[in-house]
């Protein structure tokens, strides 16, 4: 069974060799020790050249593997000490070197090393080297009798004393090292080329994914544009013309899709409906709710309209504002999942008399600018936002306009607009702005208010939809 075991030593010929390691790095020493022990060798490990020499004298090892850079005594010192000791000099000595400089070879020769293994090395390569060295025992010749060689390297002359066998061994090991490093380079090159192929493939996949994302994105942009178009259809007609009424409005969504919308339209021969609705949040969910709500706020007699219905005798009946709010609140209670709700100010203006009935579902108060003079007035009505509290009855209030009076409906994006220091624009500044422009045409005053809000929010711009609807009654 032992022959089939994959754990059998790679080099069975010299199993159980007494090895001495000199290595100051604990980690590298441990790894080397384990690998050699696993191969069946007896291993002693010293942390510097001086200690290693003591150990070698204590018990003569069969082979020595030594690092070069070590405190107390370097690998060269240790090697020289071994090779000049008659009792030790025939022990094969392997130097672990980075071989970063050709002079290292000279130093190794000078120290009498038998073999070089360059770091980093494969443990199997080192084991192979040990095996090769052990297979050719070193003649126990006195280095004192060895010839003195003269070598010139980088313009510097070295005198090295070395035996022929040692020189040969070292030369061969240097060459083998170069071959091994070359093979490693070839393998690394192959791996690089595989990695490059992999990268090219990944790159191609990324490109195709990118194209897919662009396609989906283009699709979403198209959908958003279509949705924004639907939203614009919820706004007053461009040519909204109602006798004795001046109408002006501004609507600036903060994203492509808004939760705000407004409208003003005739409900019958004498009455006009007007509203500003603000659905909480922004984006797709809010705009979908806005579109859904708008279906119920239509002046066309239909099953869904909450504003008008047809009496059995064919006359159009206009619902009173409180009834509209109560019904809407009932219809939208189901929205448990999203937590969406909306605020609304809805009014019905009786054009011949100037009487405005209005209801508020948690919406900011409307502003009236009396034609007769006096500061702008806030007229609010109590009522919770729609779809917030189940089964509440809304109540409307009445405001009698005088000829020339203006009213302004708006979303909270106006008073709650924040400046760079997070200070809200506020009702006071809003009222002052409306007051300042009371001498100008209605459209100019609505534009002035929007401009004031936008300036307040500089440089970031409004974070909420801004909606303003102005109406002047001039019978």
């Amino acid at each position: 069974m032992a022959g089939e075991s994959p754990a059998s030593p790679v080099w069975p010929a010299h199993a159980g060799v007494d090895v001495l390691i000199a290595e100051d790095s604990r980690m590298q020493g441990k790894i080397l020790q384990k690998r050699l022990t696993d191969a069946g060798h007896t291993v002693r490990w010293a942390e510097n050249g001086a200690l290693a020499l003591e150990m070698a004298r204590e018990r003569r090892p069969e082979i020595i593997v030594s690092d070069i850079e070590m405190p107390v005594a370097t690998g060269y010192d240790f090697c020289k000490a071994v090779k000049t000791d008659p009792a030790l000099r025939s022990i094969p000595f392997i130097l672990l070197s980075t071989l970063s400089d050709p002079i290292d070879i000279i130093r190794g020769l000078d120290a009498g090393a038998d073999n070089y293994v360059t770091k980093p090395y494969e443990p199997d390569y080192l084991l192979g080297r040990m095996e090769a060295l052990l297979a050719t025992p070193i003649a126990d010749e006195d280095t004192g009798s060895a010839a003195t060689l003269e070598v010139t390297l980088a313009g510097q002359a070295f005198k090295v004393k070395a035996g022929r066998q040692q020189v040969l061994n070292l030369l061969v090991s240097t060459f083998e090292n170069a071959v091994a490093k070359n093979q490693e380079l070839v393998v690394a090159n192959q791996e690089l080329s595989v990695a490059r192929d992999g990268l090219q493939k990944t790159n191609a996949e990324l490109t195709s994914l990118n194209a897919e994302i662009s396609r989906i994105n283009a699709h979403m942009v198209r959908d958003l544009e279509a949705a924004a178009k639907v939203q614009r259809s919820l706004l007053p007609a461009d040519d909204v013309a109602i006798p004795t009424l001046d109408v002006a409005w501004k609507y600036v969504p903060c994203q492509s899709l808004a939760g705000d919308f407004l409208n003003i339209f005739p409900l019958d021969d004498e009455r006009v409906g007007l509203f500003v609705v603000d659905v909480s949040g922004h984006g797709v969910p809010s705009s979908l709710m806005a579109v859904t709500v708008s279906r119920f706020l239509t002046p066309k007699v239909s099953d869904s309209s909450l504003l008008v219905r047809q009496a059995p005798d064919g006359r159009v009946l206009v619902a009173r504002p409180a009834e509209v709010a109560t019904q809407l609140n009932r219809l939208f209670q189901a929205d448990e999942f999203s937590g969406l709700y909306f605020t609304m100010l809805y009014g019905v203006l009786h054009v011949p008399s100037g009487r405005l009935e209005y209801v508020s579902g948690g919406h900011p108060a409307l502003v009236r600018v009396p034609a007769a003079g006096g500061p702008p007035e806030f007229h609010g009505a109590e009522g919770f936002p729609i779809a917030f509290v189940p089964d509440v009855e809304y109540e409307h209030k009445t405001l009698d306009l005088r000829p020339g009076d203006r009213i302004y409906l708006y979303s909270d994006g106006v008073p709650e607009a924040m400046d760079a220091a997070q200070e809200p624009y506020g009702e006071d500044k809003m009222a002052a702005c409306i007051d300042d422009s009371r001498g100008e045409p209605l459209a100019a005053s609505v534009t002035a208010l929007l401009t004031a809000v936008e300036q307040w929010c500089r440089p970031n711009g409004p974070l909420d939809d801004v909606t303003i609807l102005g109406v002047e009654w001039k019978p």
Partner: protein
Amino acid sequence: MDQFRRIQTGKKGDVFMVLFKDKKILDDTVLDEIRGELAQFLGKASGPDVLLDFSGVEFMSSAMLGLLGQLHRKVSGGQGRLKMCGIRPEIFQVFKLTNLDKLFSIHKDAPTALATFT
């Protein structure tokens, strides 16, 4: 005990106490996380007494009010009570604009609010 990212929780007697950790509750994803964490904290308690502490909150979107509405319906549907405290003037303005200051039971701070549960 405190495993939530958006809310700090505790119990005083039968009252579930919630302190919002965020200074700004504006982002939809933050809102969704708060909604999920509240549901997890309140668990299956039917009609629990709940105290929400806003003392760390400086800004809040109108969508957060929607979440409070949901919570209000859930709590009062089971005869529980929902109370709030530590609301800054800027945030109180949001409640006031929407008339919701009249719906919610709002108190100065946590001790004052807790005293009203008994």
